[in-house]
């Protein structure tokens, strides 16, 4: 028990001291996950919305594959990207393996199905009325589709939060394709693994605290965003 309390104390001190190495690791973590989230969102939101709104061939199949990949184990995502980027792989000549770019690729693979699948679901859950109302007020098809997407924004924000939470917290993919190289591809989660292995429990706890603070901040920011767009929304009142 003492060890744990001691660890937590030292962990807090470590965070407080703003150790430059830890700051650097935190920045890499954020940079990788936010880049992956951004790219996955740029692809996933429009594709998910299009899948929900357009009756195109192969739509059901694509959606089912997307839903399946929402639960893709991070290590597997890492493995796929590893196989593609390894020297003998199809994109081997670019020598991306063990760089932040490779980590971003693997995380896109994790985030895309979540964003795309949840966007499709939340858009499909909108009712016909939304489209009808927009169209009777003179909206073109594109404008009506946009109105439906706007009505779905709560669900899309939830999809983004879910994806980001998963990215920041995962170890498997970034470890496999990043290689946990100090000063370059080491991120918060892989550092925890390493520090624990080296017996540096308090450093591991300190980094863990940072990870928690980041996750908590994400939730906080999302809540603020939601409040801004749903000023007077009281939600469902259960009495």
């Amino acid at each position: 028990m003492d060890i744990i309390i001691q660890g937590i104390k030292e962990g807090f001190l470590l965070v407080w001291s703003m150790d430059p190495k830890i700051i650097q690791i935190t920045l890499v973590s954020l940079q990788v996950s936010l880049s992956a989230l951004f790219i996955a969102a740029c692809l996933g939101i429009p594709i998910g919305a299009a899948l929900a709104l357009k009756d195109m061939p192969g739509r059901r199949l694509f959606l089912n594959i997307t839903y399946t990949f929402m639960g893709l184990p991070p290590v597997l995502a890492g493995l796929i990207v590893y196989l593609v980027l390894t020297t003998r792989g199809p994109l081997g000549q670019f020598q991306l393996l063990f760089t932040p770019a490779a980590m971003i690729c693997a995380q896109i693979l994790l985030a895309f199905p979540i964003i795309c699948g949840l966007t499709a679901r939340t858009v499909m859950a909108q009712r016909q009325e939304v489209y009808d109302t927009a169209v009777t007020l003179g909206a073109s098809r594109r404008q009506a589709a946009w109105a439906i997407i706007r009505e779905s924004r709560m669900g899309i924000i939830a999809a983004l939060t879910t994806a980001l939470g998963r990215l920041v917290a995962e170890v498997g993919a970034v470890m496999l394709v990043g290689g946990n190289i100090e000063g370059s591809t080491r991120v918060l989660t892989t550092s925890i693994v390493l520090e624990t292995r080296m017996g540096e429990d308090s450093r591991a706890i300190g980094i863990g605290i940072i990870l928690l603070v980041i996750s908590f901040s994400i939730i906080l920011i999302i809540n603020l965003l939601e409040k801004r767009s749903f000023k007077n929304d009281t939600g469902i009142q259960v009495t």
Partner: protein
Amino acid sequence: MTPVFKLHKIIKRYGQREVLHIDELTIPRQKICAILGPNGSGKTTLMRIMALLTRNDTGKVDVLGEDIHWGKEQLLKLRRQMTMVTQTSFMFEGSVYDNVAFGLKVRGKKQREIRPAVEKSLQLLGMSAFIAADARNLSGGERQKVAIARALAVEPRVLFLDEPTANIDPQSAVEIEHHVQFINRELGTTIILVTHNLFQARRLADEVFFMWDGKMVEQGSAKEIFEQPQDERTRSFLSGETVF
């Protein structure tokens, strides 16, 4: 003058069931037309076909003199001249202002034109005080009034009203009737009104159409229909009896 709508041998089915079967129907310009009939007789379905929201299975629809081929450009052009207040009005997320401004925004109107138009519409319906309110928190009647204001803001040539005053108190209902009459007389807007309020139909309508089980069983001037209905079903519906 070409009629606003001309329907020829229109059939609409849902599954096996034929919910609408209209042989010929002509809606004249600049009139107030009331469609009456029991629940499920196909009034909303008919309106949705005329408003180009639902596609008929067979037959030919003419809107404002154009033969409908359901092409994208034609649909948009014609839909922008009509608008509908539906039986259950849907409010977009956002303020009352956002909702009433919607139709003007999609038409690419400038902000400085939108604001006064929204204010004017809301004022007509006595809803000015609610301009900044969250549209989702309105009461049923307030919501209905905002829906009417939203429809009037775009100054349509054809206005569909599907039971517009069903949730509205008598005083406000009379005011809304006056506005409907006003835009019909002053702006020449063609009004197509579905109502279960027979007094309202009698007060407002120039032409009355009576539907039964997907078919148009009688039509004529309000005076004819209310004073000398020809069809047995119309007669009993208007007198509140049932024919079984």
